[in-house]
């Protein structure tokens, strides 16, 4: 079917259908089927888990203040970093970017009244906090200790909590899969009239590249986890070599999911950046099509490189080269994106708001993480630094310097659409600079710690590394303070922040054309789209939005 045919048109269809507004606190704010409320629920839940996982991170750094540890026992330490990793990946970054900002923003940006399956949406949200609690409750019965990757056979020896971990991650997977299905259908079927693929905002493109990954890759992980669970609980041999199983099988199945998962965690952040940059440069994004299609290319290629996590796992040598070269190749579309973002700044009228600072910080830090990623993709060098702190530094530059910075940019940019108010800019700038300094202080030294021979997953380490570890730990406390500032800012601004009005930033995508926070039905009338949103010198490419900011009732409200 053609792109056009996939879109809605007016005349008695979904485009003009408005559900009656749900009444009562529970139906509105707890078991709500409104994508905006669900998005906010996701974001809040994810931040709560972020606090817990962040405390675990500070525990890790405190343990590493001294070469011989001593803050917590090695057992506890192993549990702490395992849960820290799992929680940050599955309970914070992925839900925040897909379920959270995805739900909150992209239906608005494509001019829809809700996602395709609101009830499914509610279901997949409510699975998520349950799974999160299960994950953290594994502490009570002895949490998993083998890191977020839980390689067998050592994870087969792990404490009972490991089974709980597997079950929890399985549930998160179900939630993501449902979200993925929901988003794909919404994106294919519920775009406003005239919103062709090449007119979609880039955040939508980010979600569009991510949703299929959520839908497909996560299921592969579900299988691996189910097998691990069965082997641990019922003794069904899949991974145990003494029963004919293969430990390497887990690594294949796990990374076949977890490499796409890396893109699940970064592509939506790319999208956020690609919205923030043009808005605050008052300038079209540079090379719209390149950015959009490179997202798709990265998502696709993400399925073909998983074994680059397994260069030292006894993988057949002839398999190493294709995976190495394919991984190098992914650097190309990523590099193109970075160049395009940088070029977007050139000749703009740049407003250095907090969101913009975070966007620029994102490019700076993510580029560093990307370059070290190329290092690790080169087999000969990976054979050296694999499993060392160099790897830790690399993926924290990508996930904290990349995804988390993107999330912060999104928080400052779209906070009006959640609360109707602006976050405080002064606190925001303090937050940015302390975070930026603290982040680099924490993770930059890890590069040379790894190269000089400090392995991952260690509760104690060689005294020669003590200085830089202390440096990193102290800097991590600075990061902690920055996060504190952020939460103070949020809590304060929800009540006392400056009223935002519909469009505080001069944005041109559809979500800025309607009041903040939007009505439950989003649009009084579904607009018709005539072009890309980013032409600042043009009149807005939308029709049918005249009444949005007046108090006329919505068209066809209460129909059906």
């Amino acid at each position, binding site marked *: 079917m053609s792109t056009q045919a996939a879109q809605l048109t007016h005349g008695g269809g979904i485009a003009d259908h408005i559900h009656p507004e749900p009444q009562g606190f529970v139906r509105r704010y707890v078991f709500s089927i409104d994508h905006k409320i669900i998005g906010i629920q996701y974001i809040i839940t994810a931040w709560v888990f972020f606090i817990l996982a962040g405390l675990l991170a500070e525990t890790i750094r405190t343990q590493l203040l001294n070469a011989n540890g001593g803050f917590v026992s090695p057992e506890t330490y*192993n549990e702490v970093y395992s849960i820290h990793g799992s929680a940050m990946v599955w309970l914070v970054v992925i839900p925040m970017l897909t379920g959270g900002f995805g739900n909150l923003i992209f239906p608005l940006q494509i001019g829809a009244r809700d996602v395709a399956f609101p009830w499914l949406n509610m279901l997949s949200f409510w699975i998520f906090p349950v799974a999160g609690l299960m994950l953290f409750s594994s502490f009570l019965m002895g949490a998993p*200790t083998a890191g977020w990757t839980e390689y067998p*056979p050592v994870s087969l020896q792990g404490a009972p909590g490991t089974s709980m971990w597997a079950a929890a991650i399985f549930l998160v997977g179900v939630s993501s899969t449902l979200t993925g299905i929901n988003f794909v259908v919404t994106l294919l079927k519920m775009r406003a009239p005239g919103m062709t693929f090449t007119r979609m905002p880039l955040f939508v493109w980010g979600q569009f590249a991510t949703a299929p990954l959520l839908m497909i890759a996560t299921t592969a992980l579900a299988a691996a986890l189910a097998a691990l669970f069965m082997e641990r609980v019922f003794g069904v041999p899949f991974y145990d070599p003494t029963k004919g199983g293969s430990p390497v099988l887990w690594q294949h199945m796990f990374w076949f999911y977890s490499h796409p998962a890396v893109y699940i965690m970064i592509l939506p952040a790319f999208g956020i950046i690609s919205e923030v940059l043009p808005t605050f440069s008052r*300038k079209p994004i540079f090379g719209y099509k*390149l950015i959009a299609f490179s997202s798709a290319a990265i998502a696709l290629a993400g399925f073909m490189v998983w074994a680059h996590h397994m260069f030292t*796992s006894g993988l057949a040598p002839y398999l190493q080269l294709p995976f*190495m*070269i394919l991984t190098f190749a992914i650097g190309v579309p990523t590099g193109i994106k970075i160049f395009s973002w940088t070029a977007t700044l050139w000749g*703009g009228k740049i407003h250095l708001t907090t969101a913009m600072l975070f966007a620029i910080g994102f490019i700076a830090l993510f580029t560093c993480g990307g370059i070290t990623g190329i290092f690790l993709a080169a*087999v000969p060098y990976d054979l050296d630094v694999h499993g060392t702190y160099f790897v830790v530094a690399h993926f924290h530059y990508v996930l904290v310097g990349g995804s988390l910075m993107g999330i912060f940019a999104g928080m400052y940019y779209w906070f009006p659409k959640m609360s109707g108010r602006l976050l405080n800019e002064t606190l925001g700038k303090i937050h940015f600079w302390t975070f930026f300094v603290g982040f680099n202080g924490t993770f930059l030294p890890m590069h040379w710690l790894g190269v000089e021979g400090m392995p991952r997953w260690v509760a104690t380490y060689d005294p020669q590394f003590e200085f830089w570890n202390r440096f990193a730990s102290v800097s991590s406390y600075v990061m902690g303070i920055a996060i504190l500032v952020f939460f103070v800012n949020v809590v304060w601004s929800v009540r006392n922040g400056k009223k935002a009005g519909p469009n505080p930033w001069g944005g041109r995508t559809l979500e800025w054309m309607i009041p903040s926070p939007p009505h439950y039905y989003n649009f009084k009338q579904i607009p018709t789209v005539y072009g890309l949103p980013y032409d600042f010198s043009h009149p807005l490419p939308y029709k049918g939005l005249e009444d949005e900011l007046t108090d006329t009732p919505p068209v066809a409200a209460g129909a059906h």
Partner: protein
Amino acid sequence: MVEHRAQPVRLGRGFWMVTALLAVLGAAGIVFWYVFPLEQYLPAAIVTARQVDTLFRFMAATGTALYVFVLGYLVYFALAFRVRASDPPDAIGLQIHDNPKLEFWWAIIPVLFVILLSVVSVRIWYEIMLEPENGIVVQAIGHQFDFTFRYPQINGEISDEMHLPVNVPVTLNLTSSDVIHSFWVPAMRLKNDTVPGLVTTIRFTPRLTGRYQIICTQFCGVLHSQMNKQVLVVEDKTAFNAWYRGMQIKNAHVSNALPAAGGGAISLAGGSAPAGQTLFQQKCSACHAIGPFDQRIVGPGLKGVLHDPAHPNLVNGDPATPADVAKILQTGYTGSIGTMPNATTNGLSTQDIANLVAYLETLK
């Protein structure tokens, strides 16, 4: 959007000055990585370690240069094009959508770089993979939580230090008795996992005498952090031979984890190979392939176990004798390469054992 094409898109003097500055900084970065004395911080103990360093210098230099430019332009643009107080509130930037020529070039340049990097890495990869096979064969076995080492003609497992002669090619067979560990010597810039039920091999040639730390880099249990106590000693030939002979004498009495045969030796006379073959299919082939030693299922492959002198022996330096095999079949085996149940568990009569040995004799 046609009217925007008309807009003058001119790069100002500031841009070129900044570009020049960044070029200087980038060049400085490149020079830095090529003069940086890596080996002062981490000696290159084996031949290929220097190639890995070459690769590292290459990637670090190009990466730094690239990063300097991205970061520099980022900061410069952000400052140079920020809104001034003088700007009207609705001021907009230059409405440039794209620039095909520019995009073409910055798509092509990374592609070329990727090709170049692939060529470099593949060449170095070959040098690592194609290290000579002749020379000394050592087996390193990962345990929770240490490594042990087996040498030809030395009984038992050496668990404190791993000795190697300098300038002699080494074939290191890695395996594990419990979970996945990873054998890493930072000074060798080389690591590989020790996977239970699998034998992985790395080859290298030590080029510097000295003592180097062996570190486990794959989480293997609660004391993983402690699994870095072993030392790799690279020493000259005479010192190595002295140590080697010393170990042979010291471990002469070590029984190689092979318990004394209960109930005296089994008479292997009258063993029938065909009967043994059927038996092998039923009782043994679940764990043992009829293939080379490396072809692991659970236990090692048994092809040529009694003939091939190059077969990594089950027990010690001497090629396994029928009596050894009979003992193992009778009393079972517990050691670094795994665990094998004894005759009672396997339900083997002495005649069965005789048949099996007779069959194994036929595997040449």
